């Protein structure tokens, strides 16, 4: 049977509705899944189903306000999984975390429906190393599309220092995004037709 018919489909870590509905199938409850189950795709308009679009790299301000909430096939704004390093490239929230917005959207829905959920395995979403570990891959680039280069990198020459600097910079973005999350939601609540 295909992934389409056997799993609940969601776009990333911490966005699952049920126990054992994360990628590895061993999570305790909603919101604690370790990775995406949506049919993996790299970018804008390439998602297979409703609710499988990621967000952040291509798309309108409106689309970027609703990661994983696309109505139809091919309407997804960006690729899955959504790494913690991915930031929005458009709109008033540009430069801020996509995963954190996806997670707060998920929490809002659960709260509205009176449904419980647990903490995500990682506070700010999955790193590329984490996704590689969960999926049993090595060095696979899950950063998704865009020609401008890695969202998680630095130009330091020494590879060890480079990685440390990149992690530090991503962490700074994640912390800033967490701090600005109410503002991020507020920006999305304003009617914004992208024009």
């Amino acid at each position, binding site marked *: 049977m295909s992934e389409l018919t056997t799993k609940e489909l969601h776009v990333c870590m911490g966005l699952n509705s049920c126990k054992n509905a994360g990628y590895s199938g061993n999570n305790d409850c909603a919101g604690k899944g370790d990775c995406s189950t949506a049919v993996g795709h790299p970018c*804008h308009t390439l998602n297979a189903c409703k609710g499988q679009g990621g967000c952040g790299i291509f798309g309108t301000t409106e689309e970027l306000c609703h990661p994983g909430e696309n109505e139809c*096939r*091919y309407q997804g704004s960006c690729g899955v999984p959504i790494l913690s390093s991915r930031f929005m490239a*458009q709109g008033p929230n540009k430069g801020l975390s996509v995963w954190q917005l996806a997670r707060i959207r998920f929490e809002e829905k659960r709260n509205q429906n009176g449904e419980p959920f647990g903490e995500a395995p990682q506070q700010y979403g999955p790193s590329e190393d984490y996704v590689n570990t969960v999926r049993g891959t090595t060095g696979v680039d899950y950063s998704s*599309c*865009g020609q401008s280069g890695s969202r998680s990198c630095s*130009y330091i020459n020494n590879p060890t220092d480079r990685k440390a600097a990149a992690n530090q910079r991503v962490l700074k973005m994640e912390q800033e995004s967490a701090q600005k999350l109410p503002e991020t939601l507020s920006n999305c609540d304003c009617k914004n037709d992208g*024009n």
Partner: protein
Amino acid sequence: MKTKKLFTLSNAVTKENIKEVMQQAIALELATIPTYLSTYYSINRAQDQDKLYAKIHAQLSQSGERTATEIDELTQELKLDVLVYSNKSAALIMSVVIEEMLHLALACNVKQAVCQTAPDLMGIGKGLSFPTQLDGHIPEFQINAAKLSLKQLTTFLQIESPEPFVDPYADKLLQDTIDYQTIGRLYEMIIKCVAEDFPGPYDYRPQLLPPDSPERPRPYYSQNSMNTVHYDREHNPQFANGEDSGGLVGVYDAHSAIDALERIIDQGEGRSKFKQHTLIWGEDKMPVPMEVVDGKVTFWEGDYDDAGKEIAHFAKFLEAYSLGGYYQEKFRNIQGLDDFFSYFVYDTDANPRTADYVASGNQALALASELGNAVFAYILLMIEACYYKDESTQYDLFIFGIHKSMIWLLSGVGNQINQYTYSKDNKAYKGALTFEPFSFEKSFLRPKAQIMNLVDQLAKADPTNWGWAIKSENYFPSLPDVGLDYTIEADMPKVPGTPYTHHH
């Protein structure tokens, strides 16, 4: 190579000729897109930094002028010069391409509403070939589809120039010119005509506008994408376009028509009422650059659009030109280094032709070129079809067709074709998109079927690099099927539970 005129510009805009003038304005906006894209695709904007470091390090080590520590430090500095500039120049060009797409749509909306006539993009596409020129400018100047260079950026500056200029090579160029006009002055003449002769309100005809749903707006114009993002020397992201730099405008009367036209002027040339940089020629017959201090230029108030938030196209290109010249000079003065641009620009020929690729015997390259031309023509067809369809169908066409074609299909070919090499006149070049006219009328097959035939042929000729194109249904197979008569057939690959339907 002889240039081919795209159109002949009128000296005056009247209520009798405004339909032709608007078609000319649309042709002008359309012509900039392949010009800028050809340069964009010539840039390797995210190369392997370790390989680049090793190359520069080896070159510096050969001279024997520096200590090991000095070589390490200088290599790192030069590596950053290349990486940051290449990424930034590409992002700046792409940011202009996106807004030129907007300008194209705005001009089409104006023609549809004011002239009560749909735009003829396919007709323009059939006449567009490189080198070309924009008639109406004095002096006329040649526009090449070419790789990034100071010369090519000079052409960009001429296209977007806010003020009349005297070309230093005018004596070598075409002489049968008419009165001088900048692009902005053309639009100012149109605005004057609309204000005087076309007050509106205009009868309804479909325009390129997103579905107007108060519950869940579904816009499809976005000023930024990851391709307009670039990184500074600390790898912090920078965004080339402002998020509120203006988008699509519905044209219903003279007021909204003028609003649409003024957006085009503002984004292209900047605000002329404030002090702004202009095209001034130096003694070397090249544009005088902006001053570069610590790797940065200083903009003036008039370099921004009307809202004062976004750098206008001319200033963006002048920044790329100024920084490019600065780094080229810096590299030239360091023994052992190559030309600055050679570190990140693919060595493509100016105004290449598919016939060159065929003559070289590189079948995959020739097919990739044909496919690129077909996809570009299909984008024009899809945009044109929007002017005959309702908002819902326009949305589908944009999301399923035009976005996918621009981001993935044309880019896929544009970024892959430079991996091929070919020989012409005993010189080796990298392949490039040719942006030659593609005539779907030559076959009885629908345009999408013709594209799929090319994809199949390419996948057979080069299965390693193009096998994905037929295997993944989310790319070429999922394009909307638009006919030359604007009919749309729903032949998208189906997924259970999410059938695809079009609203005709």
